[in-house]
């Protein structure tokens, strides 16, 4: 194998995966493009093996948990009220009580200093547990992937169609598995339908509250439309902003989507599942982007989504986003053109689009112009240092939050930005995280990791810096903070 092969292999693993590890550079050096293409053809590509609850199951668990919590709080409140009443009667009022507690705290101050908070041995509350197991499965998949291209595609699409765990804590992880992973190499139209009809998205973008003004429920409750989901589907998920749709289109599409809802998670049988609720649905035809859609109930929305998936503006928007994520903040127009063309020619076949991405020469520019976004960089650090079994997932999530990108908690429906400008100011924080995580790696040889992680990409200066480090941990931290590791 050639030196160019090695370099292309290292580039491929960083640009399209989560970085090189072990002998992965040599393993694919004969045919880096072929290795990326083969990753798309793996049986079960995009799926993860972990057995985790479905979104509906998780939503029901969270609903039960919250109900129980509420009951316990109520009991505690009652007990406190009773105790207060009793002691007030005995001590002759609350003043006596506060004196007694003041004395106690005086006595405590002369005792040896209190211990610091103990290590958290108690399991976290259920919603957090659900989130942690989902996050663990996701990070493990990234850390252990051979090539990692499909995982990167999952992360890309998950950010493109983001929801926030702040609103749908139990469903954020299941949403990614059910809606994104199932269609990551399928047709965009199917992906789009899976996403927009997923309870997590319907709840996140308020569609469960939307009802047609002339629907049965709308009339009875004097309520109406919430156009959030309709607008974001146009602006973020498909056509892109300023692509020609009007407010009238948004309103019509929002009417189309009324009734796309879920079953209350408190329902023991099917709670948390998607439901089309007819009494919320705005009756009648709707005109969206100049096309009339007859009122066929849930099918009306499906028809609009199917068309949205085929608009040239959608192909262009998605092509720009893919190019910007994988290749350069401002991707070469020729690359965007190729991606958009494949998208249209293949009727939104995402596997074909992914193939075009890795076979286009523009994608192999040796200049590494992208700064890895926080989560991707962290996954790369974990992967290279072999610490996925050592660093608790809670700590990884904490690190991700420290870098301003908490997992499944984007501040807005447009997801995390994909540009260097957004993330470069976090570099000093990355040094802290690199130092801590590198310190946890056990029995590592930094120079060996330099060769397996960067191989021919490592500059002489980076090699020297790693070799001259003060400790193994420092060497590893410097390695993962080197420009060659940060950029791809």
């Amino acid at each position: 194998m050639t030196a160019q092969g090695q370099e292309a292999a290292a580039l491929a693993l960083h640009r399209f995966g989560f970085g090189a590890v072990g002998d992965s550079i040599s393993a694919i050096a004969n045919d880096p493009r072929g290795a990326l293409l083969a990753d798309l053809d793996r049986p079960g590509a995009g799926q993860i093996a972990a057995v985790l609850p479905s979104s509906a199951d998780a939503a029901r668990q969270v609903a039960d948990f919250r109900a129980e919590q509420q009951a316990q709080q109520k009991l505690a409140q009652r007990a406190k009220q009773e105790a207060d009443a009793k002691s007030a009667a005995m001590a002759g009022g609350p003043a006596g009580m506060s004196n007694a507690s003041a004395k106690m705290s005086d006595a405590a101050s002369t005792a040896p200093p209190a211990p610091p908070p103990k290590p958290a041995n108690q399991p976290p509350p259920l919603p957090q547990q659900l989130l942690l197991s989902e996050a663990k499965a996701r990070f493990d998949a990234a850390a252990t992937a051979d090539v990692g291209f499909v995982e990167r595609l999952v992360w890309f699409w998950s950010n493109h169609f983001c929801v926030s765990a702040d609103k749908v804590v139990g469903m954020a992880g299941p949403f990614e598995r059910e809606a994104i992973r199932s269609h990551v190499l399928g047709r965009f139209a199917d992906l789009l339908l899976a996403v927009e009809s997923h309870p997590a998205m319907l709840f996140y973008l308020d569609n469960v509250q939307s009802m047609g003004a002339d629907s049965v429920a709308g009339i009875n409750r004097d309520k109406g439309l919430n156009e959030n989901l309709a607008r974001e589907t146009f602006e973020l998920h498909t056509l892109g902003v300023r692509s020609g749709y009007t407010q009238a289109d948004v309103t019509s599409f929002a009417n189309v989507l009324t009734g796309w809802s879920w079953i209350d998670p408190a329902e023991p049988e099917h709670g948390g599942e998607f439901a089309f609720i007819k009494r919320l649905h705005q009756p009648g035809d709707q005109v969206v982007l100049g096309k009339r859609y007859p009122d066929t109930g849930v099918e009306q929305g499906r028809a609009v989504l199917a068309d949205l998936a085929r608009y040239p503006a959608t192909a262009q928007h998605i092509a720009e986003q893919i190019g910007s994520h994988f290749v350069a903040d401002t991707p070469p127009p020729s690359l965007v053109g190729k991606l958009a063309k494949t998208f249209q020619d293949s009727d939104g076949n995402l596997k074909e689009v992914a193939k075009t991405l890795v076979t286009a020469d523009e994608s192999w520019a040796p200049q590494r112009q992208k700064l890895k976004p926080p989560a991707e960089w962290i996954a790369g650090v974990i992967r290279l240092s072999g610490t996925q079994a050592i660093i608790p997932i809670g700590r990884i999530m904490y690190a991700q939050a420290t870098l301003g990108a908490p997992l499944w908690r984007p501040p807005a429906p447009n997801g995390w930005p994909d540009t260097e400008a957004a993330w470069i100011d976090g570099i000093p924080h990355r040094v802290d995280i690199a130092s801590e995580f590198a310190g946890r790696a056990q029995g590592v040889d930094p120079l060996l990791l330099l060769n397996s992680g960067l191989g021919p990409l490592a500059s002489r200066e980076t090699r020297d810096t790693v070799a001259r480090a003060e400790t193994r941990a420092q060497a590893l931290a410097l390695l993962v903070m080197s420009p060659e590791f940060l950029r791809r």
Partner: protein
Amino acid sequence: MTLHAPSRREMLLASGTLFAWAHLPRLAYAEGRDPRFLAIILRGALDGLATVAPVGDPDWVALRGDNALTLGSKVPALKLNDFFALNPAMPNLLHMYQANEAIIVHACATPYRERSHFDGQDLLESGLPKVTPSDSGWLNRALSGLAPGGPVDPKGSGKGSRVFAVGPVTPLVARGPAPILSWAPQQIMPASDDTMARLLDLYQHRDAKLASVLDDNSKLTAIEHAGDMANGMANGMANGAAKKPGAAQVRAYFSEAAGNAAKFLAQPDGPRVGALALDGWDTHVNEGIASGRLSQLLGSLDDALGAIKTNMGPAWKDTVVVLATEFGRTAHINGTDGTDHGTATVALLVGGALKGGRVIADWPGLKAANLYENRDLKPTTDLRAVIKGVLKDHLHADDRVLAQSVFPGSDGVKPMAGLLA
């Protein structure tokens, strides 16, 4: 090993600084003591000569020139005895020394004689005689090897049967068969100034954008901590003017890590032995012995020692803390106002259980011929003897266990007697 010049020994004996520790009668273990033991690993190779300066050695000033700490320096070194003086950044250690709660062992080293940090640290923490991969450290094996029923009982049901470790990473010295109880600050600890400096240097050569972000951040941090500088000066710490960004965070981390270790060990039902690592001692460039980087680090370490004493509360009288580093630094200053990797250095012992107020040194001298390989302070005391001495008299570790499993192959290195009060 080269024989030591007799004249040098006489000189030291005359000045009263050489303690014939080997000949002291073995003191009976203070019955009823509930011993606490904390090991602090100083990774990066601490400059022993800049920490405890041999101001009475006639070759000292010639050796280090302007970088030699003396009693007459602008910020005078703190006098320990007629021969040694302490870095002025360490007033807490001076007070402990004066209260007979600190021992300094000088010209001390592990058996490691190469100059790789990584290997040196592994050997320091593993306790093995040679560089061999190890997944356990001497502290953990020492606890595991204690006899059941003693003051620290490895088979006991309480937390005393566990090794306490501070930080997100359990140091090798604390790993091993005995269970580990660990605690880490929630905050991600700041990377060391040294790591930042190395990275900035790399970025300046390779990536201007990254360099500018890191550099700007350093400046912001410096402004943010301007108040801390003023406080540092008011507290009589090293000259704050040269304080580098991030130093305040390091100071806070050292104190938090060490102080919390003390809080855990002080608990009646808490662990009895513990370890933590404080990094950042690799001072190749602009060492800043009297004011600057090393001075700040030593000041941070001194704060940490103060925090340990405070937080140990009544248990301080039962406490021994050993601070050790993988090796020392070159005797001479290098071409960039720093020092390179060397050999012998200091080991610091503090705690109310010590028979302190002493510098223990079989002083090798600083003449070129006395230096190890013509460049480093020559090791004359085996660090293992010091640690074995503490483990034996403080924790009741058995001689045979110490020689075979705690520090394997150390039969020839007798536990140093008389360290404990």
